[in-house]
């Protein structure tokens, strides 16, 4: 059965074999450098040192945020 995550507002579907087991795994699959982002799951911040131990569940809202230039 396929499961979904809403990542930065867009829904992503994962086959069981592709399901990311943790935040760190998700970032790896998306080819995003862990050191440069902060994550929020259903409105709760996940500290970077907990990325690999934080599991993901079907239907969660994930925000992946990074620093950009700004004034």
């Amino acid at each position, binding site marked *: 059965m396929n499961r979904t995550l809403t*990542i*930065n*507002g*867009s829904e992503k579907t994962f086959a069981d074999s592709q399901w990311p087991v943790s935040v760190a795994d998700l970032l790896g699959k*998306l080819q*995003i*450098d862990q*050191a*440069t*982002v*902060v994550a*929020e799951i259903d409105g709760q*911040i996940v*500290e*970077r040192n907990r990325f690999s131990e934080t599991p993901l569940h079907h239907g969660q809202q994930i*925000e*992946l*945020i*990074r*620093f*950009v*230039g*700004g*004034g």
Partner: protein
Amino acid sequence: MTALMIAGKEFTSRLFIGTGKYASNSLMAEAIAASGTQMVTVALRRVDIDNENDDMLAAIDRNKYQLLPNTSGARDAAEAVRLSRLARAASGINWVKLEVTPDPYYLLPDGTETLKAAEVLVKEGFVVLPYIHADPILAKKLQEAGCVTVMPLASPIGSNQGLRTRESIEIIIEQATVPVVVDAGLGAPSHAAEAMEIGADAVLVNTAIATAADPVQMAIAFKQAVQAGRLAYEAGMAPASKKAHASSPLTGFLRNET
């Protein structure tokens, strides 16, 4: 020139730099270095999960520059608090430039939401530098709430109109017990010098440098203008008057007085 203290940290440069709108990270890094700044602002945005994202922080030496994450994009207090917490989680830094700008056309700050957010953030241990309209009463309330500076705008963000709020900023400077940083709208080095001459403790500049034809040279121009303005303020400006006051002696003219 005296140093500036904010929240126990010393700044010998009174020019703060925004990092938006640069054509490249390397140009940004060069302009930052040329400006002599010790404080740079950054923003938080969603990662683009379908494209490669460059890591702009890699271009900023965090041992050299105090990073000041902003809450740009926040439309109310709750969004600003959320962004501040994310910024702290992302950077480990608890300094935040608090900005709440519900109106996308003029990007003017919402004073009541800013105060509400500041009260929450100060309680949570953040070092809060709020961006505000040049409102002396609001500045006082934010100072009482525990903000470490107030940052009144010169004119709308990115407008390059200069110090349109001068009279109100003068009142803020007269009354504030925390440093006053003039932020937004300074489009030319002379605008920055003017803000410093009237006693601002520092200025924050982004657009005027980042979008100049030569941002590195413009960074140097702002650096010198800020230094000149501060030196003039500390030297004590000679008063203005309507009538002329001769600089040369009014005696010994080459004519016979009748």
